[in-house]
């Protein structure tokens, strides 16, 4: 079985700070990581490989430095890695990104495509389902577990109220929750291997897609403007003993008719 896992390099958003003077993002020194849901997806694929045997290919679209997360995936146990990198991909929104990935996937023809539910830099959860539609494949999102029997996957999908059990035959697309799959550690042998293996570099010429659907010109949505949130004016601040704090809170809650 051939499994392709789509992964993304993202800034660790929990480390981003805002410059209090200029109100702009401080990105310097913010580490880049493999997106957590994608890493969960890679773990799902590697577990299927452990149980049933499979070739696991990881693919990412990004700048040349995204090579790092592909090496990390090698060290975890991936067999093959592809970096989609080309100026023609730049400025892509989710739809154009999904078109580029779908173009590569048409060439790879996998039995199973796995992606993370969403990336922590955008939180859109769109690229997986969009890719599935371009490829005319069924999708299951919010995946917490997947078991394979023959060509049939039995999948647990999380919902607000609980979960659903779904069945689907391969080929299909699953988008996975990080919380459901604890990624394995890289092995020492894996890390050594990771730097000996070749990361394949693919340009837009190598994939099967209409070039008009790529990058900025293939993106229906555009950023009109971006800004940091104007912070709300802080209210009153008191440094007091707990007894006085009780009085302050009760008085305010009465004044605001909350109690």
């Amino acid at each position, binding site marked *: 079985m051939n499994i392709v896992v789509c992964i993304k390099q993202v800034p660790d958003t929990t480390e981003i700070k805002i410059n209090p003077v200029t109100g702009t993002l401080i990105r310097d020194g913010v580490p880049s990581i493999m997106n957590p849901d994608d890493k969960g997806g890679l773990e799902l694929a590697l577990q299927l490989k452990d149980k049933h045997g499979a070739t696991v290919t990881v693919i990412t679209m990004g700048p040349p430095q995204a090579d790092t997360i592909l090496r990390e995936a090698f060290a975890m146990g991936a067999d093959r890695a592809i970096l989609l990198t080309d100026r023609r991909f730049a400025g892509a929104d989710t739809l154009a990104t999904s078109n580029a990935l779908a173009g590569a996937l048409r060439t790879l023809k996998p039995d199973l495509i796995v992606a993370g539910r969403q990336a922590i830099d955008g939180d859109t959860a*769109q690229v997986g389902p969009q890719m599935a539609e371009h490829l005319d494949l*069924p999708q299951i999102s919010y995946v917490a577990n997947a078991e394979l029997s023959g060509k049939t996957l039995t999948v647990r999908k999380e919902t607000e109220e*609980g979960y659903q059990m779904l069945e689907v*035959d391969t080929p*299909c697309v699953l988008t996975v929750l990080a919380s459901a799959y604890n990624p394995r550690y890289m092995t020492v042998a894996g890390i050594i291997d990771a730097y000996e293996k070749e990361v394949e570099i693919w340009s837009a010429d190598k994939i099967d897609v209409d070039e008009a659907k790529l990058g900025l010109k293939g993106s229906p949505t555009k950023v009109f403007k971006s800004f*940091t949130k104007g912070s709300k004016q802080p*209210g009153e601040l*008191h440094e007091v003993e707990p007894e006085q704090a009780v009085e302050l809170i*009760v008085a305010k*809650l009465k004044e605001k008719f909350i109690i």
Partner: protein
Amino acid sequence: MSHKDVYVFAEQRDGAIQPVALELLGKARELAAALNQRVVAILAGHQVEPLAKTLVEYGADEVVLADYPELKDYLTEQYAQAVGQIIIARKPEIVLIGATTIGRDLGPRLSARLCTGLTADCTRLEISPEGQFHMTRPAFGGNLMATIVCPDTLPRMSTVRPGVMQKAQPDAARKGEVTRFEVKFDSSKFRVRLKETVKEQRAQVDITEAKILVAGGRGVGSKEGFAKLESLAHTLGGEVATSRAMVDAGVMPHDRQVGQTGKTVRPQLYMALGISGAIQHLAGMEESDYIVAVNKDKFAPIFGVADLGIVTDLHKLVPMLNERLAKEMQK
């Protein structure tokens, strides 16, 4: 015919309209007024026609109904065919979808099918003075806000998280028409089979519906600490909420989490106890009507959004406050 009108996907589950659908109708009315257009609800399901009346009361001028056994339970392809065919036939200018596990599965599938843009998890939607649809959303984990436009493709689609927009007052006298839509299903594409739907018992009220939230963070620290917060919340008639740190630590369940990766809340009173106020947390609660924050660190960022900030020892404060409030509530 050119594209017009503001459409809302009126999500229902087991014949119950989801609150987010009514919230979206409230927003759709504002947008439609600015564009001088109508509000249309798309209602898909099986034996759901009685829900149309509610959708009209909350702001729909028309309800387009797709009522088929194929649509009894949500499945991606069945719903994508029904809603997709409605959109293709009716040509809306704007389509709003709730950012639930259903809407976030259906929305991107539709955007790819219709080759148009979809902006996820918007927190603000407005028509600019030039008549352009502006969709504003947080990015980089809530660190940055981006206003997105979709100038050249139609319809312009966005998803909105539950609790972000406000419902309009229902008006039982409002009039609206119900139009049945004939879906031409291609069942060869129905490739996902639903085996079982499991609902887990949730005894407590959903935190997005609570009027009062008593939220605890790292400063509360333990299950014992949260038991005291439960008691305080009970006294106030509210619910307990938490920050990501306590969910990651396994102290509190995820459905109690407020913030970028949790829920967005806007209660009348938000009491933040021992929460430092990471930007991801603030993104989920700063629209609350009144915010009381208690922390031992006077430089905690939570004080930046609090109406009343108190630097004190919360472990001493909570039992005292609970006792005092219990007396006040009896009066």
